[in-house]
């Protein structure tokens, strides 16, 4: 590994692949992807369902099909990859330490780095689900890997906590594979995933979705024997007397995704406490010069298409940085989440160039208006926390409004929820 690497991309999921391709296309000579798993694609190989690429390719693709399009393109562009290789350290000068069985212990110093580590699932411990600690409690994504890749089923009768997309998709998948899904339990008053998943994964199979409910106890000594489900009040506290027992041999968790930023922390990258990902400017540069980030490592997206687009921006910027050894900072204006806005990415923009703002609302509502300072407003028939709001803002409009310092984004709701 003595030769020079222009752009190193950490992670070979949809973000990493898109970033590597974009970096090559923007002129980076040598682009290297470093991936911990046995194959490229990240989680896409196990996402065998369709619904991918509707925006990016204007086609309804499955995870493996979407992945294949990117892998083939990356190969044709000569992007290199190290598989089963774990990056164990990253420093603020872009120094990478990685290990693998085949290549041993490696130190790399690329011209630029793209963080594309994606996200991980919240675990039972993090979700604080009380009860005993038997076998048969696992996250929906781990179950998906077992069922779709490894060829094993962790049980035959399931309760799923959390109505995130992976949870609902697994409810359908397991039902189709002959298992029984007793219920999907959601603590919030609204589902955590997309409507199309609620309809096609739950309603189609008559799987009950229990909103404002929580699993308040796991039963079973060696193996899960069932769970207690309780109603929750407005403070999300269990309502005494509302307990119901659901027999099951498996409890799946789909209780949120957390951007995977251990390496970012090691490099001293500033993280946004709300998104859990790096604070980025509109070039997707982090607070550490030469380190860029894109995809779910920055913010948890609901559509892979946007993961690819965001990572492409990071890849292009990384290539430009690697070329010149610097990149014009695009961080003159701070975007601040205002009324009913949980976060906005990028957190920093130039205030002069076109930019796409990604945001999530805090509460759902009908007849919503999203206002970007005095620059722009847009009406939505409906907004929901589970569906990212995406707004294109023109550089002309920003310049005309003379945006300086801060730009507040608000979401007003006129209808009900």
């Amino acid at each position: 590994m003595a030769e020079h690497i222009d752009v190193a991309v950490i992670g070979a999921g949809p973000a990493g692949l898109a970033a590597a391709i974009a970096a090559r296309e923007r002129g980076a000579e040598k682009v290297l992807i470093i991936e911990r798993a046995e194959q490229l694609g990240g989680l896409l190989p196990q996402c065998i369902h369709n619904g991918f690429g509707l925006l990016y390719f204007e086609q309804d693709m499955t995870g493996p099909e979407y992945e294949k399009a990117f892998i083939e393109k990356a190969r044709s562009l000569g992007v290199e990859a190290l598989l089963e290789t774990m990056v164990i350290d990253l420093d603020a000068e872009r120094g990478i330490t990685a290990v693998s069985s085949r290549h041993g212990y490696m130190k790399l110093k690329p011209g630029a780095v793209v963080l594309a580590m994606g996200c991980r699932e919240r675990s039972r411990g993090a979700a604080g689900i009380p009860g005993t600690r038997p076998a048969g409690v696992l996250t929906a994504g781990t179950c998906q890997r077992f069922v779709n890749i490894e060829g094993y089923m962790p049980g035959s009768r399931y309760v799923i906590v959390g109505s995130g997309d992976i949870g609902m998709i697994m409810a359908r998948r397991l039902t189709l594979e002959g298992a029984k899904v007793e219920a999907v339990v959601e603590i919030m008053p609204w589902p955590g995933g997309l409507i199309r998943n609620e309809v096609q994964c739950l309603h189609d199979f008559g799987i009950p979705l229990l909103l404002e409910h929580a699993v308040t106890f796991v039963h079973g000594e060696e193996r899960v024997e069932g769970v207690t489900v309780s109603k929750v009040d407005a403070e999300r506290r269990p309502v005494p007397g509302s307990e119901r027992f659901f027999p099951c041999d498996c409890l799946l968790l789909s209780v949120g995704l957390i951007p995977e930023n251990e390496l970012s922390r090691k490099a001293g990258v500033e993280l946004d406490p709300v998104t859990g990902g790096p604070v980025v400017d509109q070039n997707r540069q982090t607070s550490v010069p030469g380190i860029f980030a894109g995809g779910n490592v920055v913010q948890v997206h609901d559509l892979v298409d946007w993961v690819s687009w965001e990572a492409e921006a990071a890849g292009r910027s990384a290539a430009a940085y690697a070329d010149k050894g610097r990149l014009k900072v695009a961080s003159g204006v701070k975007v601040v989440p205002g009324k009913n806005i949980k976060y906005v990415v990028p957190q920093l923009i130039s205030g002069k160039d076109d930019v796409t703002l990604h945001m999530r609302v805090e509460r759902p509502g009908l007849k919503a208006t999203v206002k970007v300072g005095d620059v722009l407003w847009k009406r939505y028939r409906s907004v929901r926390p589970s569906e990212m709001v995406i707004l294109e803002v023109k550089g002309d409009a920003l310049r005309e409004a003379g945006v300086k310092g801060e730009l507040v984004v608000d979401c007003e709701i006129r209808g009900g929820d």
Partner: protein
Amino acid sequence: MAPRETVICIGCPLGCRVTVLRDRKGNVAGFKGAECKQGQKYVLEELKNPVRTLTATVRTGDESCPLLPVRTSRPVPKALMKPIMRETARVKAAPPVKAGDVILKNVLKTKADLVATADWPGAGGEG
């Protein structure tokens, strides 16, 4: 009186809950609650002949890659999803497979084929 029929439109994030109105003969007479024309069209299709693209896996017999992902080449009637799943348990893919290869033709006479969605060169092949 027939039970109230509602269909949730999945055309957009709005997720309209559309109530179906029927005349005395049981024919659809109109809708309540659909915000747009496309929504009405979707609901009508959904009532007449609900179809879904089915994605699943088939066995390969290769322990290092035991399953191959597949999909139906076109949407199939909703009611046939489970019977088609039983078919997936009966077939075994034969290597080498390229994404797009037909694994099972005209599954349960739906005119849809089960098509591989990933490559599988076969045991010991290049991954």
